[in-house]
């Protein structure tokens, strides 16, 4: 054996390399089957960044379909409820420049809202129940409906189907617990060179 190797160095090297190639190939093939991941993991990541209002303002029936579409190369600025922060987060994830929100799909709302049914006007038609993407409306045919405020995403989808227009979108009540400290103004303006580059502090942070 050793003699054969010494006498035919090229052939033995070839055999050794081919052998190694086969072993590693088999190993990789096995690993690819064994640790296979179903679906595209980037879709999950995008989906987790979207606000999950399921409002359909992007033109897709829910957040996950839009996430799938983004993974296929759709533009990332079609989500008004998420707003600029969601666009930035997705841009960060996909390593692409962050565009402005596409106004065609709606404007970013300043305040969060929830649906509220004026219960004495409700006729019990169940149309809003069918429209609600997150099952946040309770009720039955010819009986009064009501919104579970904690589950409502404020997507607006129930407002349009209501035949008696008894659904209002009300701002979410904010008490002491929801109150947020205001952000103090960014320190600049005292040094002359700062005034022209007002964003210098932001850049310095990265």
């Amino acid at each position, binding site marked *: 054996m050793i003699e054969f190797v010494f006498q035919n160095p090229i052939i033995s090297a070839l055999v050794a390399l081919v052998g190694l190639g086969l072993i590693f190939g088999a190993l990789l093939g096995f690993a690819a089957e064994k640790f296979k991941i179903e679906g595209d993991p980037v879709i999950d990541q995008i989906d987790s960044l979207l606000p999950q209002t399921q409002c359909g303002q992007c033109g897709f029936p829910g957040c996950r379909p839009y996430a799938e579409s983004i993974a296929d190369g759709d533009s990332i600025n079609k989500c008004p409820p998420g707003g600029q922060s969601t666009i930035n987060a997705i841009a960060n994830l996909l390593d692409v420049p962050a565009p402005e929100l596409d106004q065609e799909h709606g404007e970013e709302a300043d305040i969060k809202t929830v649906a509220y049914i004026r219960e004495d006007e409700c006729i019990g038609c169940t149309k809003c129940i069918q429209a609600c993407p*997150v099952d946040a409306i309770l009720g039955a045919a010819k009986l009064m409906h009501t919104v579970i405020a904690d589950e409502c995403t404020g997507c607006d989808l129930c407002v349009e189907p209501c035949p008696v227009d008894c659904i209002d979108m009300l701002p979410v009540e904010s008490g002491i617990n929801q109150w947020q400290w205001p952000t103090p103004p960014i*320190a600049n303006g005292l040094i002359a060179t700062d005034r022209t580059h007002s964003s210098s502090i932001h850049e310095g942070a990265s």
Partner: protein
Amino acid sequence: MRQTWVTPGGVHPPENKHQSVTQPIGSLPIPEKLVVPLGQHIGAPAIACVKLGDKVLKGQKIADPAGTVSVAIHAPTSGTVSAIEARPIAHSSGIEALCIEITSDGKDQWIALQGIADFEHTTPKTLLSIITDAGIAGMGGAGFPTAVKLNPGFHRPIDTLIVNATECEPYITADDALIRERAEEIIEGIRILSHTLGNPSNILIGIEDNKPEAIQALEPHTQDTGINVVSFPTKYPSGGEKQLIYILTGKELPSGQIPADIGIVCVNIGTTYAIKRAVVEGEPLVSRVTTMTGEACEINRNYDVLIGTPVSHMLEHNKFDAEKCSRVIMGGPMMGFSLMSKDIPIVKTSNCLLAPSVEEIPHNEPAQPCIRCGMCAEACPASLLPQQLLWYSQAKDYDRLQSHNLFDCIECGACSYVCPSNIPLVQHYRSSKSDIKKAEEEKIKSAQARERFEFRQQRIEQADKEREAKRAARREAALQAKKTAAPNSAADIVAAAQARTEAKQLSPEQEQAKLERAVSSAEMRVQKAQSKLDTAVASEEPEDKIKILSAALSGAQQKLEKAKTRLAEQSN
């Protein structure tokens, strides 16, 4: 002399404590109206248990605790409930919250009180319920319900009880004055606490060395009680819970844990006094010692103030000069907050009301850019990197903020105090903290929404599938039925037709019986028609009706004839 440890960082702002301790604790006249907020503690706000117009006595419970992390609230004086509505409360936001307004009747009449003199033979459980019912929440500033703190559970044995008498913030002397005048009661309160916690081996009173009179007042009462008074050099912020634990025990409280996790319970000294009053005298928490100080007030001293006393009432009785004053601060100059309205009431956590003159605490100067001097990092008692946190806070980089332990910041304000650029660092951190908390809440909510959405999709899909399956089954069944019914060939068709006609044909006996039945029923009908005609003729009915009846009779007779002939044919 016990060993003490030295915390990192810290600052030495001018103390300004002497002004308010020259006089003993005073009391104010009862204000005409007292406003008692329902949420004076951390946790769920209490639930009002009185109605508008109810007469209440001093110390009467006016709100029940809502859940375990909550405390009761009591009427601070006797009078009438004149409003239950949202009012501005002592909170940095200036937001309104539910309050009970009591119009005083001036009598200040106590409800009947019942205390327990012999607390050592009372179970800790009973004592804890007394403490909750007396409305006692931490009086050092945070307002955490004390009974919850005193009940750490079996899995967390307590070996050290720390009583916090540090009072490290400038100007505030409420605890100092309380100790000087009521040391005996405080020690009694500590003994109750110790009994409730199962007599921990170490009981320490931590106090800064700038309060020698208070230390002296405590000493005669602590001899041979096992309670140690430990004094240490004055430095701000030694009174923070984590800092005090380190100073007294050398133990560092790990991030995200509570003192009970390392066998320590830390209680403010004002709270121990309130506990003594509640247990021994049965007196609920309706008043507290609050420092009224600052150059804009002529009188600087401590008061025993009823909870719910409006700030304006306090200021009035201390000859407040609005023109001289830069702002009214609740709490100390480092961690307190400016009040937006002077109608805000004193609550259980208000240890100081500071009305400084403009020279004393000038208005905030505009912030300048950070020059990276690093003084904040030297001052930080939690060993954080304040300037780094500032950059990330401004860039809203929440991940990096959290990896730099933003949530270990105790918001003491030492960094802002030393900052040469006047950057309101703590405000940036507070803002970022609330942003991060909000983002986390939203994440939880969106995960919930996703789950519900996916469940709904699945349900609709399932329903569609079931419907489809049903439809398919029905189609299959119809097809099958057709198949079994459908003849295969022309011969089969003929055979099937023959079988059908055969099945229709009756046997001769059956036919006979059938015809006989027909004949008998026809006879019956003829008889009926005959009798009807007879009665009609007898009662002389109109002619046309008789005609109809006779026609019916003849029809019936014909049918009878037919049946008879068919029966005759069959018999043949």
